[in-house]
């Protein structure tokens, strides 16, 4: 079953009179349980495609379906609802809320989804164990290493058991050992829970984990 379907999607950024085609007609289907890598040089459209699949942005033309629902023309609030329920994000920078500790950061999407306190506690505790950070539950982001922060971000993305987790260069700011640890964690979650992962990267050490590699260049898919 397809989690995401992209039909003839273009995305044009306007800056004054200058127009930049970030995506120039992309067609793509992501099936449930995939572990897919988007590769390509900088400016090829990887991040734009992830943002469109993640309902953070809207296409200039074309359609995007998430779990069969057309999300291309949804308003801001409806897109927030889709993100909250079905999409998890992992960013290149360790995108945690600095005033919340590891536990509270993971708990945030559960709170936004209205999950009851008991269930929240159970889920967050399990996830902290899963990512090997039970002893760091009360640490704030500035008290953790980059690798630990990214593992918290993965746990947060996974907390609501989304249909798809989108990761934009998740290892770009990590050393080799931490990068591998993060990729192994993502692989394990994918295998054990079946959650779909799509991640953008141009690091060959990361690409090797992917079971499907989609190559983008100048806003077009050139290899799949």
């Amino acid at each position, binding site marked *: 079953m397809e989690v995401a379907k992209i039909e003839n999607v273009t995305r044009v950024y306007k800056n004054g009179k200058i127009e930049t085609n970030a995506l120039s007609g992309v067609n793509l289907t992501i099936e449930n349980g995939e572990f897919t890598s988007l590769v390509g040089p900088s400016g090829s459209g990887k991040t734009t495609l992830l943002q469109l699949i*993640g309902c953070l*942005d809207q296409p200039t033309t074309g359609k995007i379906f998430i779990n069969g629902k057309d999300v291309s023309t949804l308003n801001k609030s409806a897109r927030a609802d889709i993100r*909250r329920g079905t999409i998890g994000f992992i*960013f290149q*920078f360790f995108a945690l*809320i600095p*005033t919340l500790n590891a536990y509270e950061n993971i708990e*945030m999407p559960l709170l*936004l989804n209205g999950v009851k306190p008991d269930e929240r506690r159970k889920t967050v505790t399990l996830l902290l164990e899963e990512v090997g950070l039970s002893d760091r539950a009360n640490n704030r982001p500035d008290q953790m290493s980059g690798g630990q922060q990214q593992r918290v971000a993965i746990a947060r993305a996974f907390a609501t058991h989304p249909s798809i987790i989108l990761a934009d260069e998740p290892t770009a700011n990590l050393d080799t050992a931490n990068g591998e640890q993060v990729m192994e964690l993502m692989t394990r979650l994918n295998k054990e829970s079946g959650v779909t992962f799509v991640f953008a990267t141009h690091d060959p050490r990361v690409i090797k984990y992917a079971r499907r590699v989609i190559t983008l260049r100048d806003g077009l898919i050139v290899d799949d």
Partner: protein
Amino acid sequence: MTQLFRMAFRDLLRNRRRSFLSSLALAIGVALLMLMFAFVNGEMTGAMNSTIRLQSGHLQIRAETYDENKSSLKWSDLVENPDQIVQKISSLPPVIAATPRLFVSGIIASKDITAGVRVIGIDPTSKANEPYRLGLLEGQFLTLDDRDGILIGQPLAKKLDLKTGDSINVSVNTSNGDVSEQSFIVRGIYSTQTYGFDRVSVFMALPKAQTISGTENHASIIFILLNDNAQTDSVKNAIQAPGYKIVTWTEMNDLIIQTENFANSYINMFAFIILAITATVITNTLIMAVFERTREIGILSAIGMKASRIMGMFLMESSLLTIGGLVMGIIMGLLMVAWFNGHGFYIGNMGISGMLIQDTIYPNLTLTDTIRVSVISFVISLLAGMYPAVIAARMEPVEALHGGK
């Protein structure tokens, strides 16, 4: 909600000094407003009490044709045989004192200096004259049978360089339009701490004032003092004085009531200016916070936080800043009011015709004013937080994610 509160609280703690200074700005505004309200209230209450106590009383019984601005001494303009009416009124429970008074225009002269005065003929034994008796600075108070004693206010004594025992010449108008002149001895010098009154008012015993002015058994008014301002109307209705009119303190002191209304309008304008400045500080603080945390707003939005909740988060911060500022402000305001209550605020010789203002103001802070200041400050500060909150809520997640550090 708890999480929003926790995040808002921790976000404020991130930049403690800035948050504290923003709250302090509000606190100073609130404290100053409380003090201003208390001063105006204190001044107006003091002026009203002084005027009632010293000049108008709560009620006055007058002849129908009496005009207080003319000091007419025609018998038809005066109250005849006032003691009969006084006796009846004195038996009413809320009445502290009812006493006849005669007002006579005159001039007093000492050596080669003269001054226009208002001679007030009083019954020295009446409780209504306690403020003058208690305000005696030197000498003795009058007695009912004093035939040549006069009591003068401190400013007049200074002007004429008089002391107790000195002799002065008093010329007064009489009921038949002549002028009568007689020598008097200064029995005492008084001060009611109300310059406007003390400067022009001199007292003599009523029988003597009646004799010198040819008014015989008449008085200008019957001055009535009650336990409580609120009882005025009920006592007015209970008094039987056919052929005379009964005037209440609110009718007599229209100027003070109008001045109080004017002062309240004025202070509301000040309140608006002070709170507008404070609101600007709060808006500025929160706008800085929004721009510093653009990427965080993007992250929260990415994980599904709705715009309304993001707005709520910043409004919560604004509320916390406001509550902190209000608590500090109320404490500071109470301390300032308490200090000025102990020490008073000396304003000097103020006072205008028809309104007696004491030379020292003691602030009077009411619960209503405290609540009013608090509610207005809270609402204005919340409104000040709306603009930054809307900016945060309107951010597009993609732009916000890339807008941070």
